[in-house]
């Protein structure tokens, strides 16, 4: 039973990380835009769930919310989850509505965040984006009516109508199918003329402009797509954890995603799958050590050191990542062109 729970939760987490890594792969790995505000777009998804799930569910069931949100949200989350347990449709409505609100909101913010990229050099842009994500966190942390500030917000269990382990299994199926879909979108974009334009802008922005590409528009598109993806991960994460706390969304999370993409292989569409798996494997091994092997220090902090060393080693030894980018990625020759080339080469 314990093994099953472990596997189910591992699969769910992996799916969430794959979504984040896929979005970062497009923005950072292919467009070369260091979106160090990744956690902010992840947070937009989670915050939408935190702010809406209890309120929406209460409105739908006619329950009046009383008292301060920060003190009562967990109480109401439990109460309303009980209602969902006899009404699956209510749970699904809550899930879908939060998703439908979060994704466009995040896409819009993504487009806004792509504008500083027009004027700022890569390093300044990265700093600006970090500041942006911290501002979002600090505001939500201190504005209590929205998400309960440091108390966090309770989240209703939209799958309360299922019993364990079916509940967890359904969550896994839901997360992994969304992750598969999003990864597939990333793969298709990455191997299309769109992905080619992204790589060209990353390689040489001036030359891309000189050859007719509208860089501002392509950046805005990419940020919109990437941010929309990250918010899906945020929605899933909030429902998976069962609560939302603004302090959970620090810059450190952004860098875990950067780590996944860098380790996996920037520019390779499969990099996001490999990178997320590598990170999760390391993370679980360290958790295992913490629980089972007595060490004279706290492994939690040790994991940051290990991950830091890992990223250094990768950058020095294998900067292209575990599975490097291999051109040509965006042309698939059909038989006619292929025979053309072969014919020409044999002529030589």
């Amino acid at each position, binding site marked *: 039973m314990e093994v099953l729970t472990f596997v189910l939760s591992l699969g769910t987490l992996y799916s969430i990380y794959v979504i984040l890594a896929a979005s970062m792969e497009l923005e950072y790995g292919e467009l070369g835009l260091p979106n160090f505000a990744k956690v902010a777009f992840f947070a937009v998804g989670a915050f939408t769930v935190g702010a809406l799930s209890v309120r929406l569910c209460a409105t739908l069931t006619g329950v009046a919310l009383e008292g301060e949100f920060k003190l009562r949200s967990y109480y109401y989350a439990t109460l309303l989850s009980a209602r969902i347990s006899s009404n699956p449709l209510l749970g699904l409505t809550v899930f879908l509505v939060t998703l439908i609100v979060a994704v466009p909101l995040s896409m819009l913010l993504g487009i806004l965040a792509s504008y500083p990229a027009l004027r700022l050099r890569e390093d300044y842009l990265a700093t600006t984006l970090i500041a942006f994500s911290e501002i979002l966190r600090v505001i939500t942390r201190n504005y209590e009516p929205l998400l309960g500030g440091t108390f966090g917000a309770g989240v209703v269990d939209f799958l309360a109508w299922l019993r364990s382990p079916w509940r967890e299994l359904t969550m896994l199926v839901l997360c992994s199918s969304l992750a598969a879909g999003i990864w597939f979108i990333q793969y298709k974009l990455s191997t299309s003329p769109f992905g080619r334009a992204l790589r060209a802008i990353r390689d040489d922005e001036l030359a*891309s402009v000189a050859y007719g590409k509208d860089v501002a528009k392509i950046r805005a598109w990419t940020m919109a797509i990437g941010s929309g993806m990250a918010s899906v991960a945020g929605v899933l994460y909030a429902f998976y954890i069962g609560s939302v706390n603004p302090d959970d969304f620090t810059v450190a999370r952004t860098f875990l995603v950067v780590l996944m993409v860098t380790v996996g292989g920037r520019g390779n569409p499969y990099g996001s799958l490999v990178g997320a798996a590598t990170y999760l494997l390391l993370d679980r091994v360290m958790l295992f050590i913490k629980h089972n092997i007595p060490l004279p220090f706290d492994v939690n902090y040790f994991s940051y050191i290990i991950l830091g060393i890992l990223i250094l080693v990768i950058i020095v030894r294998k900067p292209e990542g575990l599975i490097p980018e291999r051109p040509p990625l965006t042309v698939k020759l059909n038989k006619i062109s292929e025979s053309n080339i072969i014919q020409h080469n044999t002529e*030589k």
Partner: protein
Amino acid sequence: MREPKSMKLDNNFFIAKNISKSFGGLQALHKVSLSIPEASLTLMIGPNGSGKTTFLQIISGILKPDDGRLVFKDHDITSLPPNLRFTLGIASTFQIPRVFPSLSVLENVLMAAGDPTPNPMRALWGVDEHELIEKAFNILKLLSLDHLWNKPASTLSGGQMKLLELARSLMSDPKLLLLDEPLAGVNPALASRIMKFLTELKSCRGIAAFLVEHRLDLALKHVDFVYVLHHGRVISQGSPDDVLEDPLVAKAYLGE
């Protein structure tokens, strides 16, 4: 629709009027005016630092002039960004080749074609680029780069990168090619092949080219018209023979 009109007034093809540009206190260009006729080879020469590359970058849109106007086929393009000038038919190459190193040779050429903003929605359905790929291969074949089609551009030699730049700029069927020292660092055999190739483009496809070049021995034989730039001013212009005999030109090149 505008085609017939510009054919009649063949000097309306490309006109630069009173272009001035200064960087800080340095006046790089001073009221430079010139015109490029359709289907012609025009050469601009001048000593180092005379403002040739600056002028070329103003035509391609990378730099904005402080003063003056640019007209291309009856369009005032003075304030158009480079990507829109490219879609109008002005393609340029860089003095030091700027290929996309992590794209393959074929992808580099394809980058110059197709949609200025490839639609990500269409990418999900799959894009049929069959015709573009055929066309790109034909261009690569012309420049003997086709056997390298799947190699990353970063693995090419300097001369091959020059050819790739040329291939890339041809992909969009330009009307006007801007070439910044296309022969620099290229071996003599390849250099004369490039010049012949440009002449062919001119006569077979009606593509005008505007070159900035120091290798006069190779370039002068092929061009129709020459402008000489010195300290940001046009000091001489005319057919290659006229310009070579101009005492001002000798003075500018050889000193007092």
